[in-house]
Every structure is written in structure tokens, then in C-alpha cells.
């Protein structure tokens, strides 16, 4: 199976809303062995000036990987998930993610590069909330490169 080179420049619109809950922030924080009180105690988060519990710095991966799934599961993409290796990851926070946020993610395929018999695919998720007048308020930009190993790699 080969990777479709026409993927480059493709984008996938925000498909669903991700509701950020307090218990999910606590669960994710425990899973990455975070102990900062701003992830667990609402009063501690508010004392730092936040409206609610603050998500750990890599929490947006949940939303980003859901967006990536649209590409990986796209039959036109030709990606075999069992041959995918995560190569790099970046999070740029325009503001902190806090409990109560309703996040949406628009996925962009920024790069497709043949490597051996496989390909390196770079995606970018623009994560935002919608304001009352439906304007986008940017929350985070995540970029990720995955290596899809070719046969015998």
C-alpha cells in the first residue's frame, strides 16, 4: 500500500466538540504523573488566576489525535496504522486549556515526504473554541509527524 501524495495541503474540518471535564484533567494528569495542584484543586487553579482546573501541557494530544484519526482512517490516504511510528510532536499554546472548554480541531496535512518505501506525514491541528458570535478563539496549535514504515522497514 502506498501513501497518496495528493494528501499534502488537504484539510479536515472540525468534526466534533471535545468537552474538557475536570475529572478528565485529573485523570490525564495522574496518567502523566503530574502532581501540580492546578490540575486537581479548583481553588489552587483560581489562586493562579485561572477560571478552572488547568490541563497539563500535553493534554491537547487527546484532541489532536482524534483529529488525526480522520486522516488515518481516510481510505483515500492509504495509511496502515499498524506501521505508524510517532516521529515528533509540538504544542504551541495560545492560552491554557481549562475545564469547561469546548474544543474543536481543524486538521491540516502540511507535508507528505517519501522515505524509503514509506512516508513521513506532518499534520497540524488548529484547536479553538467558538465565541458567542461564532468567531474562532485560538487555544492551541499542535504539529505532529508520523512515519509510516514501508514493507520491510
Amino acid at each position, binding site marked *: 500500500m502506498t501513501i497518496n501524495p495528493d494528501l499534502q495541503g488537504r484539510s479536515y474540518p472540525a468534526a466534533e466538540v471535545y468537552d474538557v471535564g475536570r475529572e478528565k484533567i485529573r485523570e490525564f494528569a495522574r496518567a502523566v504523573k503530574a502532581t501540580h495542584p492546578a490540575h486537581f484543586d479548583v481553588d489552587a487553579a483560581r489562586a493562579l488566576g485561572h477560571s478552572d482546573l488547568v490541563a497539563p*501541557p500535553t493534554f491537547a494530544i487527546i484532541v489532536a489525535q482524534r483529529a488525526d484519526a480522520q486522516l488515518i482512517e481516510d481510505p483515500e490516504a492509504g495509511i496502515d496504522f499498524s506501521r505508524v511510528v510517532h516521529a515528533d510532536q509540538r504544542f504551541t499554546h495560545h492560552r491554557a486549556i481549562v475545564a469547561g472548554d469546548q474544543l474543536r480541531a481543524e486538521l491540516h496535512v502540511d507535508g507528505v515526504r517519501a522515505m524509503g518505501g514509506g512516508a513521513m506525514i506532518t499534520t497540524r491541528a488548529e484547536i479553538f473554541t467558538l465565541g458567542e458570535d461564532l468567531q474562532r478563539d485560538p487555544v492551541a496549535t499542535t504539529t505532529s509527524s508520523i512515519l509510516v514504515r514501508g514493507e520491510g522497514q
Partner: protein
Amino acid sequence: MSLKIEDLAVGQEIGKRSIDVTRQDLVKYAGASGDFNPIHWNEAFATGVDLPGVIAHGMFTMGSAVQLVSDWAGDPAAVVDYQTRFTKPVLVTDTTGTDAPGAVIEVAGVVGALDADAGTARIDLTVTFEGQKVLMKSQAVVKLA
């Protein structure tokens, strides 16, 4: 704690940490993150795709390593940018039923750069497993007070 740029210097150490990892930790991370790739919890599947055994999620390693920076900054929201490359897997052996960790990840951080105009410090993390770097160019940018 409130960090000020004038009190920091490039090369200054921010601390070190050891992170014990067990197979149960990987199951917890899978559930919390939604990444259920069986290479992170099933030995037979992992060896069947030519891995030496069950390996930690790269995002587990990235996510746990940054806690050193969150705690140093005093507010996790101060980490405004964080990036890494994944270069080597962390092999987690099955120690279920014992108190022993299946792997130990070592994290150390130094101030890599200071930007007075932006009011930020770049923290460069060295993240190793069994003496080898598992993350490269692991950099967290902290917004200072």
C-alpha cells in the same frame, strides 16, 4: 514562586527527576489519552511487529518529562510551547505483582535560552533511559512572570 528573567542564566540547571514506569502506568496512559495501540500493552503484539517488547507511548514520556518544568515554573499554564523528537523507544518490562518498576526514565533540565523581549525562558530537557537519549530537541518555552 515567581521566576524573573534577570535571575536566570543560560546553562542554569532547573532540576532532575526519575520517573518509574510500570506496565500498569502504560494501561492508565492508554485509557487517559485514548491511544490504545497494543504495542503499549500487549507483549505478543509488540514482538509480532518486530519490537523488542512492550514500549511506552512516546507521548507518555513527553508528557511525564515536562512535569519538571511545570513544577519549576510554578504554574503549568506557563509552558506556552513544548516540542520533542522521539528517537528511541522506552522498553517497559513486565514486573506485575512486584514493587519493581519496569523502566526508569531520567529527566534533567537546563535553561537553554532567554528571550527578554518575549519574557520567556527555553528549558532544554535531557531525557534518558538506560543511559541513552529517548527524546531529542526536547524544549519547553516558559512564560515568565
